[in-house]
């Protein structure tokens, strides 16, 4: 091969010329073509790809919305209404972007749930997991900033409440908040800078997603059994097996997305956000969007202002430490019967936290949110560290191929199953 050129195997001459100078074709063929992927993926493994698709849809719709949106307090609300009424397909752009945010959180929460259930955060995937938590934080920030932009009542008051949280920081808190606002309250400078940051952050997400997938391709994917592939009989090339499976998943995802966008576009939203922002009138029930409700419930569960802020942050930060909190050598909860039940309880608990986050801060909801918050943390900080030592896991299968194809086929893995190790005929 000539010096300075990549040794490309691509057959098409034009593509080969490109590939020799920047091996993108080779890279795609390796990372998304022949990449050995465990053969026993279930549909929970679709959600990473769905998240990536969702991100692309959000960026595309967002860029076109930004061509017509005006980030000024006097004009923002009306510019959104203009998009809805006068911009060709503006209504579609807006509804896709708005419901796309909800879809993003549905997808990402299921993606994370998969990681929790199957132990995908355990060695050697700890860094992969932590990059994922970073993406979650960036996503939450992006969503929060985006929700402020239409400048409705919920936009304004949500921004007021959340930025006010920083005033809980001792000594410097109130000063920080003033600089954050760029004014003495949430006002025009705040809206303008939120727009700038909302446009920026998705591209930061793209960067961390790249690192996330790169890290994944070093360790390889986990799988529902939680045991590492031992050889080619345990894996399948990503294309065509998982390109086609992902296509099925994408169709279902688009169907749910379309159901929301075309039949219930405002179902997940709050009617008060169709009232223009009024700094003198606080809505009776300030609630964030549904995807923030569990963390909102944690915030309000603590009677102390700083304590609530700290605990709400801790609810996400605790995820960073999961690889070390869970002491079990067994990855998948399929083989950990007690922890599995407790995790399913934790899942139900998460739904309860979501529900209680929308309720007013009165009894009995305050008590419920406190109990649920306790259980949320106890699972990570007490149950997982102890279970690794106390629980006796079920025996793990020998290999993926054995578990998926059966003993005979696993040995041969050839086109004629059972051709090897033929048993002698039973006497009549």
């Amino acid at each position, binding site marked *: 091969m000539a010096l300075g050129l990549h040794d490309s195997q691509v057959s098409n001459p034009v593509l080969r010329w490109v590939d020799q100078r920047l091996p993108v074709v080779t890279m795609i063929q390796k990372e998304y073509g022949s990449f050995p992927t465990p053969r026993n993926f279930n549909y929970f493994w679709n959600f990473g790809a769905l998240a990536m698709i969702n991100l692309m849809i959000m960026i595309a719709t967002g860029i076109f919305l930004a061509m017509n949106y005006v980030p000024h307090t006097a004009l923002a609300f009306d510019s959104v209404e203009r998009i809805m009424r006068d911009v060709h397909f503006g209504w579609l752009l807006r509804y896709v972007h708005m419901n796309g945010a909800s879809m993003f959180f549905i997808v990402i929460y299921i993606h994370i749930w998969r990681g929790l259930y199957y132990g995908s955060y355990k060695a050697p995937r700890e860094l992969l997991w932590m990059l994922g938590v970073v993406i979650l934080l960036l996503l939450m920030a992006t969503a929060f900033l985006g929700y402020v932009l239409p400048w409705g009542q919920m936009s304004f*008051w949500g921004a*007021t*409440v959340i*930025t*006010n*949280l920083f005033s809980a920081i001792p000594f410097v808190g109130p000063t920080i908040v003033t600089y954050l606002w760029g*004014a*003495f*309250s*949430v*006002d025009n400078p705040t809206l303008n800078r939120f727009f700038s940051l909302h446009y920026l952050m998705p591209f930061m997400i793209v960067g961390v997603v790249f690192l996330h997938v790169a890290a994944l391709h070093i360790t390889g994917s986990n799988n529902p059994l939680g045991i590492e592939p031992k050889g080619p009989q345990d894996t399948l090339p990503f294309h065509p097996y998982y390109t086609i499976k992902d296509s099925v998943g994408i169709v279902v995802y688009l169907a749910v997305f379309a159901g929301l966008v075309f039949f219930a576009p405002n179902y997940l939203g709050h009617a008060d956000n169709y009232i223009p922002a009024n*700094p*003198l*009138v*606080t809505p*009776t029930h*300030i609630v964030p969007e549904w995807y923030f409700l569990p963390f909102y419930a944690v915030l*309000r569960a603590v*009677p*102390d*202002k700083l304590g*609530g802020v700290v605990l709400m942050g801790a609810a996400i930060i605790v995820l960073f430490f999961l690889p070390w909190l869970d002491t079990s050598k067994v990855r998948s909860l399929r083989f950990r019967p007690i922890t599995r039940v407790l995790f399913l309880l934790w899942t139900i608990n998460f739904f309860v936290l979501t529900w209680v986050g929308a309720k007013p*801060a*009165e009894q009995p909801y305050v008590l419920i949110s406190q109990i649920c918050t306790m259980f949320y943390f106890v699972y990570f900080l007490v149950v997982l560290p102890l279970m690794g030592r106390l629980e006796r896991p079920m025996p793990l299968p020998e290999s993926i191929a054995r578990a998926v194809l059966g003993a005979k086929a696993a040995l041969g893995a050839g086109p004629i199953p059972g051709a090897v190790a033929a048993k002698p005929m039973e006497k009549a």
Partner: protein
Amino acid sequence: MASTEVDISPIAVGQAVTVMWRGKPVFVRHRTAEEITAARATPLGELKDPATDQSRVTRDPWLIVVGVCTHLGCVPLGQKSTDTRGDYSGWFCPCHGSHYDTSARIRKGPAPTNLPVPEYTFLTDSSVRIG
């Protein structure tokens, strides 16, 4: 920086008015004698953020405070005659249930401090400049 001038002559006894100052609502209340007595009679030991009523007013019967709850920033209710005033006859924040008394001091609920008193001067008997 920004100041707001308020004409307080039309505010009757027991009535309150909300003005905007630096983007935030400011409550100007014309307190009744009972409200002032109740505020003065409160023992300081009962207060989460102890402050005498006298330290929070410049000229009776006027109470001027920034109408932003010190918990997470909602606007407390109590300005309109139809509003609830909470358990201490002052203001009530509907977001998380903070109760303020007739001197706008926090009495119950998650708010950590009293409603702040902005800088203000009486230009005449019937007009105040806030800020």
